[in-house]
């Protein structure tokens, strides 16, 4: 296999990390929404926690994207 082709395949594979980020972000917002509909008055207090969870879940996926970019352009 040519090195260039292997690079592209590797970059594509590295983007699989975003699957986890997608699942995680969906879980966080979905659970926040179902919780917020059960008890709307408590929802605003948890908004910061929502964003922290979102940020942490997203970061792990973006590390994978970063690896893909490093393979392509590094």
């Amino acid at each position, binding site marked *: 296999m040519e090195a260039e082709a292997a690079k592209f395949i590797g970059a594509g594979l590295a983007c699989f990390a975003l699957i986890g980020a997608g699942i995680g972000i969906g879980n966080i917002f979905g659970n926040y929404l179902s919780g917020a509909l059960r008890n709307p008055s408590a929802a605003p207090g948890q908004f*910061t926690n929502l*964003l*922290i969870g*979102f*940020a*942490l879940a*997203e*970061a792990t996926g*973006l*590390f994978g*994207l*970063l690896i893909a*970019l490093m393979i*392509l*352009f590094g």
Partner: protein
Amino acid sequence: MAEEATGLVFHPMDQFIVKPLFGGAEVHWYTVTNSTLWMFLAILSVAALMVLGTRGRAIVPSRTQSVAELAYEFIANMVYDNTGKDGMKYFPFVFTIFVFVLVLNMLGMIPYSFTVTSHIVVTFALAALVFIVVTAIGFARHGVGFLKLFKPDGLPLPLVPIIVPIEIISFLIRPISLSVRLFANMMAGHTLLKVFAGFIVSLGVFGVVPLVATVAFTGLEFLVAFLQAMIFSVLTCIYLNDAINMHDHH
């Protein structure tokens, strides 16, 4: 990469090239580039909003004054909620970071402009600043006791060799996760817009579909631009809270 025939007239990554504005193609540390220009424009627009907008100090605010006040109150509440009374000292720091990142993200949404925050060197510098400030505040306030941050209260002794390294790694990885999150979000979003924009021309009549998608994504990008600035400052507040109040809640 750019010379491969991809069907696009431009390469989606071309928008991120840092070009010197005057003279040759070499970039030194003092070269005025398009990145410098847009950072400067960001500072100018923040100054215009904050200084000129609030100059009237009207009881019934004008539109610009009201935007400035909203931004101020938004961050003041965020800092107070997350760090408590002791943290309000650091409000100017958080406010500066929030407004700078927000304006850079928003200026990047102007067509043909340059998104400064889509470069990891910029976001990493900001994140490293946050990391250094937080660590300095922690050691200044608690001395060596700040190291107790790595050992939560009530931790059973057998778990210490497992939990403490994890806590140390999660502390040290903060500048990386903080900077990568902002940079990757801005870069991925802008690349996505350019890739979709390329489909509009190449699909002919059916280009209407990607056109609608591009318009919708542009709206989403405005939301992301705000959200990422907000997340950056929320996390700065949380890190500050760790340094100021350690693990206990205020």
